């Protein structure tokens, strides 16, 4: 699969593209028609306050939701359920199945697809090395794992089939600050090691800047601005951009002066 991806990348085709995609729940418009291209092999961060539509956007990309209008293209083709195994998905609380151990969660799809035990074992060792998850922790059930450990297992599960795209919905949202900082650093290292297309949803500007190559700021179901932090600071497309940055920057500065951030 990685080789397929390389061919496509060399051809310059966009891995994920949204064309005029909208989605509404009942009366309220959740998402205005949106056009967005996800740059391959980079980390794109969907950023914005709660209710801005960033999670909806991510779930549309996965095909968990059907758009009311527009198309979502994966490899230049409309998204289909069969393509789901080329995407890995990590949700806020990990989404681990409580009836399975860490190992059971990670290997569930591989077992279902009939992989040999040896192959599963090899792949799991690779993932353990990548995520630095304790090997003996794999035999524990989700309730026996800490929040950070659950996220690592969830990440391993998402990466088990070596997907082309990794989609993460607030992966650090439910963690306490220290674990959050640890996992943030690990995630950056992992994203760099993988070199995959990553789409990450967060409301935290610091996290977005720390993990992301490309930021997409959303508000009320619209994209307000795309680019880097520098673009947002120097050429804000809207007064909201400056407000959003300033609101979180004071916290960032405070954290930086205490040396709590890496």
């Amino acid at each position, binding site marked *: 699969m990685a080789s397929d991806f390389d061919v496509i990348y060399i051809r310059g085709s966009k891995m994920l593209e949204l064309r005029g995609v909208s989605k509404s729940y009942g009366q309220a418009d959740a998402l205005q028609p949106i056009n967005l291209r996800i740059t391959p092999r980079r980390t794109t961060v969907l950023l914005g306050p709660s209710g801005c539509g960033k999670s909806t956007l991510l779930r549309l990309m996965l095909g968990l939701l059907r758009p009311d209008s527009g198309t979502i293209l994966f490899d230049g083709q409309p998204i289909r359920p069969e393509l*789901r*195994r080329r995407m890995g*998905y990590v949700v*806020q609380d990990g989404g681990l199945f409580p009836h399975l151990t860490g190992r059971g969660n990670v290997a569930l799809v591989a077992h279902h697809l009939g992989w040999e035990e040896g192959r599963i074992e090899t792949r799991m060792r690779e993932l353990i090395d990548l995520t630095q998850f304790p090997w003996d922790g794999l035999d524990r059930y989700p*309730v*026996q794992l800490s929040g950070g450990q659950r996220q690592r297992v969830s990440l391993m599960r998402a990466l088990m089939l070596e997907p082309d795209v990794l989609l993460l919905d607030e992966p650090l949202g439910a963690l306490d600050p220290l674990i959050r900082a640890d996992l943030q650093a690990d995630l950056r290292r992992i994203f760099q090691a993988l070199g995959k297309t990553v789409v990450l949803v967060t409301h935290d500007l610091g996290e977005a800047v720390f993990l992301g190559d490309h930021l997409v700021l959303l508000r009320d179901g619209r994209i307000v601005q795309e680019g880097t932090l520098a673009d947002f600071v120097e050429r804000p497309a809207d007064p909201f951009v400056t407000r959003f940055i300033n609101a979180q920057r004071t916290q960032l500065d405070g954290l930086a002066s205490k040396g709590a951030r890496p």
Partner: protein
Amino acid sequence: MSRKHWSLHCSYAYPVSLCALCLCGSFAPAAELKIGSKIMVESRILGEMLTHLARDAGATVTHREGLGGTLVVWQALLRGDIDAYVEYTGTIRAEILSGKGVRGGGAMRRALAEQGILTSWPLGFNNTYAIGMHEATAERLGIRSISDLRKYPDLRFGFSNEFRTRADGWPGLQKRYGLPQTDVKSLDHELAYRGVAAGSLDATDVYSTDAAIRQYGLRVLADDLQYFPAYQAVILYRTDLTERATEAVDALLRLEGRIDEVTMVDLNARVQIDGKNQSVVAAEFLNQLQRQPTQVGAAPEPILAAPAEAIVESSAGRLLRLTWQHLGLVAVSLAAAVVVALPLGVLAARQPALGQVLLGATGIIQTVPSLALLIFLMPWLGLGATPAILALFLYSLLPIVRNTLTGLRDIPLTLRESAVALGFSPVARLRLVELPIASPTILAGIKTAAIINVGTATIAGLVGAGGYGQLIWEGISLGTGGTGLMVQGAAAAAIMALAVQGLFELAERLIVPKGLRLKPE
């Protein structure tokens, strides 16, 4: 199963007739006969009498005893689940032929014959409403009939609530006889009996063959103006029986005119008050009849060819048999309900609109009283385990459907979406993720259904399917003397319910995945 044989040695001079019986038996195959009876003590004693009589005539007889009410017995007779039972003419007019305006005896016979049912002549006693006084008081005042009451306006009457208020009870009686009494109370019937026995009341309403008449020493006053409707006991039997079991029918009909009120009161009391076995009491009566000449000057007419022998099951053996029956009813109905309700629950979770319909439908079933449901099913399924199992099956659907639906619906969205995102088909999601996660809730639903089933299965006794209900209903029919039997049945059912609960808690450890049973650390 251990069975005790109680041989009633009334005579030792039957070798000849026994041999005759053997010879008859070797010529023709024994006719098969099914006798029915209602839950009341009197009906069960009479059912045993018919059983002994038909057996004596060489038939193979089963007694489906203690059926739940006129409708059940009548339906069973029409379907051929039973061939004969004893009914009261008043009940035939009021319940079986209700609305047909049948008045005279001839019209009643014809109306029943149209449905393939023949009627015997009355057995002798009339089990209707009557007025009872303490024997000593009645003797002292010289009261023999209801008309005699007119002479004593100061008498104190205490009637059961129903009799006191019903138009065809006290108000009508007072009018017909012109009774002057004004001290008329309504109170619990048992208290009324005790009041009369203790002398604080002078008269109460009774059923004319009630065991209480003997127990409290009451005199039943003659209804000289024939105010109360006749409830003459008659045997109802299927027309086809006259050809299929001619000899047995002849034997049954020998009971005509043989049981008067005093005798029936005594037979009832022997079971209800003395705690004797109904089959033994019936056999004793028939054996006695045989030795007494029925008419002055007439030659003794033997009723039985050989003395009747009551087969009385030991109470331990009976409890064991009823336990197996009860377990069987619960297990079969529950297994069927799981097979049907689990997929329905999954369907309900997938299609919320259909789910509402399914929950509504299974909920409505739940509101149908169990006996009504059984009577409703009887025309198709008859007597026995089948209608009982179907009823229990229907009652088990709701808890299982509802818990399956709830268990699946309550799986957090993130888990369901994670399973979709992992690329599983709907079936694979159900098998690998959703059903395991919902398993504690689903199992709890099955457990609820099983425990409710153990309780509800007691109604099976009313359609001849056995189970602990037989003990309970029989106990109820015996009145105060049946408390022990009732408690035995109820306690056995309670113990079984507890055992079922324990079994499910064990099953939970095997079925519910460990990860769902662990507490967060």
